[in-house]
Structures are given as structure tokens and as C-alpha cells.
């Protein structure tokens, strides 16, 4: 850990964004332990009674929460309450208690069998299967005298401390009341971090020391420093709040195209996945799109949509960006987002398997259809449409993709640099690509050989790592030598200080969640290209990710 963590009240983690927040802690209860299948010491009647009582209490509690929440949340919670008091479930539970199960285990097992059935039905119902787990956990928590799982309720603003947040938790989170998020697990690409970035919430992830925080502790969360401080001095609080106010003032003033202090232009683009996010990007001042993820249009589909269907969606997105660049990533089926018609089943190591361009080359008709649809949509649009291929590892693949794109009528075709081999040989790849765009999430995963979806190795998933920065530097130099633009389209570009370093390493444009654009624009405007190069040199020569960040922060705020 960093030297800064010497004070027992100062906890270190990875900061998301650069805000600060002060307030009382509310802890998210840990998941309810799974009940053991042990024989009951009570009579079957007693267990049946306990189970009924717990399910009724759970239904009542869910309805009360629904009534106070109102709107769609009320409908969702009411449906959960109906599951808790479902007669078919009650019959199954009763059956199990008669066979000698405890109430806890009977509820767990009965819900489990219904859940498996829903999962088996797939689609929307499969997605709702998690609701049953939620209901079962609540009933079991009631029986065990534990706090109900899920986001705790509060009338006043608080700092939420959790192990990590699941998508279901964040759906019921009242963001108005959350001053900041602190997690003990998870890294900068965890669900919590992505949510925080999207919504502009101050957050610290992976702060393992935060496990010791108690409800009601007053903490100062400083995302820029990546620290959580218990019982902070008033002086420290004032200083932090003042810095946030200054930043907000700078952010409020910054507008227009991205540029460094010396006027060197750095276009700020958005990462989008749908027509809605395209509109949001425009509203937030994006100068175009650096990454249009097209998987969303295909997810859940049994077969690829037709050329006409695809072209219609692409047209809608392109129409949002007249005269601006839109970089479309062709289908990236992968470990975390398999597509039935493209992804091989049963690979032992899907992140290293036939994904990205490898899968498309094996099903070339799908790639041809998509490029044809993109060319059609581009022809009738004022946007400057470019395409790029995911998971390119060799110069030959770059050449294959560019030739195909040119053949099908798309003039500008580049590669995503996510695989270390592609970065190391960037001088060769650059000769077969119209541009290169670095996907820092995957590049970090592959460079440090740490699964980005696996919490236990989340600390490796840090784009500040000098090994990753050196690869980016190699790509930047190759781009400059061959006059090929080098973009960044990973979460790294959304970290304002790291964004400056990336420009220093040779990035010519930055693409990010559009909510991060204002912060990045403000930070860039405070440094010249010489500054950025000096900071980049400090970062690449550091020993670790933490040391790289500390060196750069130290140089900016001596």
C-alpha cells in the first residue's frame, strides 16, 4: 500500500472522479449466509409456522417500502411481495418443513427451485430470477435476526459503504441521498465504479480498510487522493470542500472543444452504446464519438439483425453528430458479452479465446453485413463515419480488416489496441491501420494477466500501471512516426489526471463516458503539451501504479 496509509484513520483505495464528500457512514449489510441443510430441532409444525411468519413479514415489509417509494419502484416491490406470499411457494416450503427441514433451509431451497425454473425459461423471466433470491434472503434474514439485505433506507444524506454494489442494488439506490460510495472490494472497472462515473458520484473503490467503518462514523471521502478519512479535522474538511468548489468553478467555465493550456487540440469524444446515450453525449458537449459499441443492438438476438435493421439504427445515431467523427466498433462478442450466433461455447478461457475480430473473421458474413449496413447508413449521413476492429493482435489482422472495410465502402478503418502484441508491434500495425484506438480496460487486463471481471484480482486492473503506460507510449510513438492518429477509449481517459498523462504519451484524442468530459476538459486546460510530456515521463518511470499516480499528483500539487 501507499505510504499515505500510515494514519489508522486514513484508508486508501482507488478514487473515481475527483470530488470530495463529508457525511455519516451507512453500511450495506453483508449478504445473508446461505442456510445449511441441517435437521431441525423444532417440530415440523413449529418450522412451518416460522416460515409462514417470515414470509408474511417479508411481504409486509416489501409493501411498506413500495408505498413509501411510490411510482415504478412500488410496482416492482409489490410484485416481490406477491412472490413472498405465493401459494405455490408456501406449499413447497410446507412440504420441505414436513420432511424435517428448518424454515430457513426450506425457504432457501423452495425459492431456489423456482429460480432455476425461471432461469431455464430464459429471456426476461431469467433476468427476474434474481428477485427470488432477494425475497428469500429477506425472509432468511428475518428468521436469523439479521438486517435485511440490500440498500439501507435513510431519510438524510449518507456515505454508503459496501463490499461491492450489484446492479440490483444500484437500481433501488436513491442517488439524491448518496453523498459518496465506498467499496472494500472491486476495482476501477467494477460495477460500482462504472455507475459512479456515469452518474458523477464521488466514489472510492477497493478500500479494504473501510470494512472497519461503522454506521454513523463521520468520514471525509477524497476521490482525487483516493482516501477515506475517519473523524477528519475541520481544517481538512474545509480544505477539501474548498478544492471541490474551485474545481466546480473551473468546470463550469470550461466549454467548447478540448485543448491544452497552450492551445494544442485534444478532441473529447464520447463512448456510447445506444441512441439515448448518443443524445446524452451531444448534450454534454462531446465533439463526436470515439467508441460506438454495437453489441447492444445484438444482445439477446438469436441471429444477427438484417442489414436494413442495422442500417436504420446506425442512421439514428449518425444523425446526432453532423460534421463530427463517429468511430464504430464492429461487433465485439466476448467473454463478458457472448452472442449466440457468434460466440463459441465451452471455451475454457474465453478472454483468450475466439472473440472480437477473431470471431468475426470466422463468421465473415456477419462482419460483411455489418460493414455494409454501416456504409449504407454513412452514405446518407453528415457524420464522418469510421470503423474499428476489436481484439486485434497482429498486423495481418489489421490489414485484413482495413481491406474488407475499404472494399465495402468505408474509407477510414482502424484497430483497437487491446492486446499487448498489437501495442508492441504498433510500428507495423500502424502501416495497416488508418488510426489506432487504445482500449485501456482490456490492455490492462491482458498486460497484467488479471481477469477484469474477477474481484480477487481487481487491484491489478489499474491503467496507471507503468507497464500499461509504456505500451501506450509505444503506440503513441508509432502513431506519430507514421502519422496515424492514436485515440484512447477506455475508462482511463475518464480520469482527468491520467488523461493529461495519456496526451503526454501521444494520444491525439480521448473518448470516455460523456459524464466525464467536463472534468477532463477542465484538467487539460491547465497543462501545456510540455507539462503533459513531463508528467508522462514521471509516470512511465515509476515502479508501480500507485507510485506513478503519486509522482504525477506530487508534480501537479507540490
Amino acid at each position, binding site marked *: 500500500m501507499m505510504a499515505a496509509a500510515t494514519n489508522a484513520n486514513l484508508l486508501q483505495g482507488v478514487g473515481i472522479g475527483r470530488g470530495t464528500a463529508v457525511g455519516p457512514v451507512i453500511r450495506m449489510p453483508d449478504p445473508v449466509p446461505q442456510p445449511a441443510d441441517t435437521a431441525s430441532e423444532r417440530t415440523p409444525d413449529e418450522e412451518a409456522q416460522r416460515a409462514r411468519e417470515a414470509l408474511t413479514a417479508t411481504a409486509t415489509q416489501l409493501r411498506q417500502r413500495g408505498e413509501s417509494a411510490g411510482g415504478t419502484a412500488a410496482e416492482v416491490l409489490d410484485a416481490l411481495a406477491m412472490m413472498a406470499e*405465493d401459494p405455490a411457494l408456501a406449499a413447497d416450503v410446507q412440504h420441505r418443513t414436513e420432511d424435517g427441514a428448518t424454515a430457513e433451509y426450506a425457504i432457501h431451497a423452495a425459492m431456489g427451485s423456482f429460480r432455476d425454473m425461471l432461469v431455464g425459461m430464459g429471456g426476461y*423471466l431469467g433476468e427476474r430470477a434474481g428477485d427470488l433470491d432477494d425475497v428469500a434472503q429477506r425472509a432468511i434474514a428475518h428468521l436469523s435476526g439479521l438486517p435485511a439485505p440490500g440498500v439501507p433506507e435513510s431519510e438524510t444524506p449518507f456515505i454508503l459503504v459496501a463490499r461491492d454494489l450489484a446492479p440490483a442494488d444500484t437500481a433501488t439506490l436513491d442517488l439524491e441521498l448518496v453523498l459518496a460510495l465506498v467499496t472494500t472490494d472491486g476495482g476501477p472497472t467494477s460495477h460500482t465504479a462504472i455507475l459512479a462515473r456515469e452518474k458523477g458520484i464521488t466514489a472510492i473503490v477497493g478500500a479494504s480498510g473501510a470494512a472497519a467503518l461503522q454506521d454513523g462514523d463521520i468520514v471525509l471521502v477524497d476521490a482525487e487522493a483516493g482516501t477515506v478519512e475517519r473523524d477528519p479535522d475541520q481544517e481538512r474538511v474545509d480544505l477539501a470542500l474548498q478544492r471541490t468548489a474551485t474545481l466546480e468553478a473551473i468546470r463550469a467555465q470550461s466549454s467548447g472543444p478540448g485543448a491544452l493550456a497552450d492551445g494544442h487540440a485534444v478532441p473529447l469524444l464520447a463512448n456510447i452504446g445506444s441512441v439515448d446515450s448518443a443524445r446524452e453525449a451531444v448534450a454534454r458537449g462531446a465533439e463526436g464519438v470515439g467508441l460506438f459499441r454495437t453489441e447492444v443492438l445484438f444482445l439477446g438476438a438469436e441471429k444477427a439483425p438484417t442489414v436494413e435493421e442495422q442500417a436504420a439504427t446506425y442512421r439514428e445515431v449518425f444523425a446526432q453528430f453532423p460534421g463530427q467523427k463517429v468511430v464504430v466498433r464492429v461487433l465485439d462478442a466476448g467473454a463478458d458479452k457472448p452472442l449466440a450466433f457468434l460466440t463459441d461455447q465451452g471455451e475454457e478461457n474465453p478472454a483468450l479465446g475466439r472473440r472480437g475480430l477473431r470471431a468475426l473473421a470466422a463468421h465473415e458474413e456477419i462482419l460483411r453485413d455489418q460493414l455494409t449496413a454501416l456504409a449504407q447508413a454513412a452514405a446518407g449521413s453528415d457524420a464522418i463515419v469510421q470503423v474499428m476492429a476489436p481484439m486485434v493482435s497482429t498486423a495481418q489482422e489489421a490489414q485484413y480488416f482495413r481491406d474488407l472495410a475499404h472494399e465495402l465502402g468505408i474509407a477510414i478503418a482502424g484497430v483497437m489496441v487491446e492486446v499487448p502484441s498489437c501495442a508492441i508491434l504498433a510500428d507495423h500495425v500502424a502501416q495497416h491501420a488508418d488510426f489506432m484506438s487504445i482500449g485501456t480496460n482490456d490492455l490492462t487486463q491482458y498486460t497484467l494477466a488479471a481477469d477484469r471481471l474477477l474481484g480477487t484480482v481487481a487491484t491489478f486492473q489499474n491503467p496507471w500501471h507503468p507497464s500499461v503506460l509504456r505500451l501506450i507510449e509505444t503506440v503513441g510513438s508509432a502513431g506519430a512516426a507514421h502519422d496515424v492518429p492514436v485515440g484512447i477509449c477506455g475508462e482511463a481517459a475518464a480520469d482527468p489526471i491520467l488523461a493529461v498523462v495519456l496526451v503526454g504519451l501521444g494520444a491525439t484524442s480521448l473518448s470516455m463516458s460523456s459524464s466525464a468530459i467536463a472534468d477532463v476538459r477542465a484538467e487539460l486546460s491547465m497543462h501545456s503539451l510540455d507539462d503533459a510530456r513531463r508528467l508522462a515521463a514521471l509516470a512511465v518511470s515509476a515502479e508501480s501504479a500507485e507510485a506513478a499516480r503519486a509522482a504525477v499528483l506530487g508534480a501537479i500539487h507540490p
Partner: protein
Amino acid sequence: MAERTLTVASTHGLHARPAALFVKTVTDSGHTVELQKGERAINAASILGVVSLGVNHGDEVTLRVQGDDDEAVLDQLATFLEKDHDA
């Protein structure tokens, strides 16, 4: 007992919200109602049962209602199923 076979009109079938509304209508009626699709019949007061039938738009289902006033309740439930709740 009153019985009727009809075609489900809801665009997304009897899933999620329409299923919850249907079960609510059943439990509010206080009657014993059976819903059958194909060979399988379930207690219509069970949301898990209703959802597990996997009733889709255009599916043919049979409703059976027991109790006083069964015809009126059957009419109400049939009207519900023949209306598009996702529209």
C-alpha cells in the same frame, strides 16, 4: 364452475407486470381460479405459477373459476386477458 378458453392479447404475454396485475385481480376476487395452458394447469393466485406457464402473446389458455358468482368473475378475468396491457 365456470370455464372459458380464450387468446391472450398482451403483447408480452403474461409476464412480469401483466402477470402481477392478473394475479392481483384473482386474489382480490377471493375465488379459486385455475389457469391452464396446454396440459398444465396452475393455481392462478400464484404469481410463480402464472409466470412459470410461460404464456405468450396469442397463446390459447383456459380459465376455470369456482365459487358464487363464478360467471361474473370469469367475465372480469377474461376481459383482463383479452386486453393488451403493454399497449
